[in-house]
């Protein structure tokens, strides 16, 4: 019961903030609303008992991505105070295509996925079970496991990607 109430509160926050993020005219406000959406998602993870995933969500998105956005917006000028310029037709078309594509993919995944608690849209979500949640020890061992279900290769691939980013950043920032 309690988790159902909290779930609907979080869902409402996520939906409203997502709508506000795309309808607001000011870009910094959009970044802030996006942050609330990401917090709501983290809240959903905590509700399901995936504390690690929730903390990663807060750390990576609140501490990383949104701070990066805000830094970039602060550094790239303040033209956005009253941004009334009309978007060109090509931009509008691209926006419509992107949103339609994203909607199609999301609907496809949602309609074909077999949800465990399949009692229609208005049924209560499953109660959180703390014991079933993956422990940090398991996650750590899977991350460096080269065996059948291990994640060593993707883990190393991501670190190569990060290294490439660092080298690229140094190349841009280097003083000649």
């Amino acid at each position, binding site marked *: 019961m309690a988790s159902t109430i909290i779930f609907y509160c979080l869902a409402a926050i996520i939906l409203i903030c997502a709508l506000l993020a795309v309808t607001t005219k000011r870009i910094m406000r959009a970044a802030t609303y996006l942050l609330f959406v990401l917090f709501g998602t983290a809240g959903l993870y905590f509700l399901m008992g995936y504390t690690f995933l929730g903390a990663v969500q807060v750390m990576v998105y609140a501490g990383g991505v949104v*701070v990066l956005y805000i830094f970039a917006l*602060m550094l790239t000028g*303040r033209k956005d105070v009253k941004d009334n310029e009309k978007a060109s037709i090509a931009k509008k078309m691209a926006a419509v295509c992107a949103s339609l594509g994203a909607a199609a993919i999301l609907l496809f995944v949602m309609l074909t996925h077999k949800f465990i608690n399949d009692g229609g849209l208005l049924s209560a979500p499953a109660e959180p079970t703390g014991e079933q949640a993956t422990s*940090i020890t398991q996650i750590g061992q899977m991350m460096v496991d080269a065996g059948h279900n291990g994640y060593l290769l993707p883990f190393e691939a991501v670190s190569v990607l990060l290294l490439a980013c660092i080298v690229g950043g140094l190349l841009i920032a280097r003083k000649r």
Partner: protein
Amino acid sequence: MYNFKIVTDWFHSLLTGVMPEWLAIGIECLIVLLFIILLYATLAIVLIYMERKVCAFFQCRIGPNRVGKWGLLQVFADVFKMLTKEIIKMRQSDRLLHDLAPYFVLVASFLTFACLPWHEGVQILDFNIGVFFFIAVSGIGVVGILLAGWASRSKYPIIGAMRSGAQLVSYELSIGMTMLTMIILCGTMQLSEIVNQQAELGWNIFRGHIPAVLAFLIYMVAGNAECNRGPFDLPEAESELTAGYHTEYSGMGFGFFYLAEYLNLFICAAMAATIFFGGWAPLHIVGLDGFNAVMDYIPGFVWFFGKTFFIVFLLMWIRWTFPRLRIDQLLSLEWKYLMPISMINIVLMALVVTLGLTL
């Protein structure tokens, strides 16, 4: 030692006896919220008074001594003054974000505050990823500071916010690294487990000897920078930037930043006490059984507050002793010295733990 969990369990069963569980949990959440807010406000008042007195004594002054005995009511008077101040609205600012920004800083501070283990069984948030959650939610504060600077639409707040953002993001790395060092020693991220372990085996700073002391020193420097306190108080360097990112705030908007700053000092010190000095765990010396028995009679929260306020005093001592750094010195201190040292320290700690050299 008395485990406080008996009391909370008794209260929970009392409530669930007369009402459904979700209502009982709701009421318990409200009580916990009230408890946090009260403790938060009380500690802020104590810390502000302590800061003013300690600062005064370091500068050979007397400090507040007119309002009440030894100036004890000075902070209350300041709070009332702040509550009655006019809230200034600026034409060019983004009102929504301007009003919202202090709450980000405050929420980050509240969430980290809730992670602290006060006593055996007295802990509000206790996950199996406690330390990681602590680091993650402390990152929310940066967003608030950046938004405060941006939404004020004035040059000093923007410079202050940029400096603060760069400083907080950099020094978070050192905090994370030193905490990782201690997690290697403990083998767990759960804060209650970390303290329980230290109550049994001795404080981490003795168990981990050289790497633990190194980690503690790095943590003190980085923690001081995370709290935006001198010698790292560049974001609000009053002689250059008037007040940094909160220049344009008046009344309680400024009050919230001020409150969060002092509580962050407390949280930083309390975390140091928890992961290095054993939280509520009493001091035990191997071989002196009589001494250990006497130490066990002192309740855990007294130990916790004693250690925390000792570290708070150390941080204040540093603040009022050293002159302010320049921004490039500040960033090179982190990236060229503290980061490499803490990385080597992690390897050292891993070696110490795997070779079984812990005390």
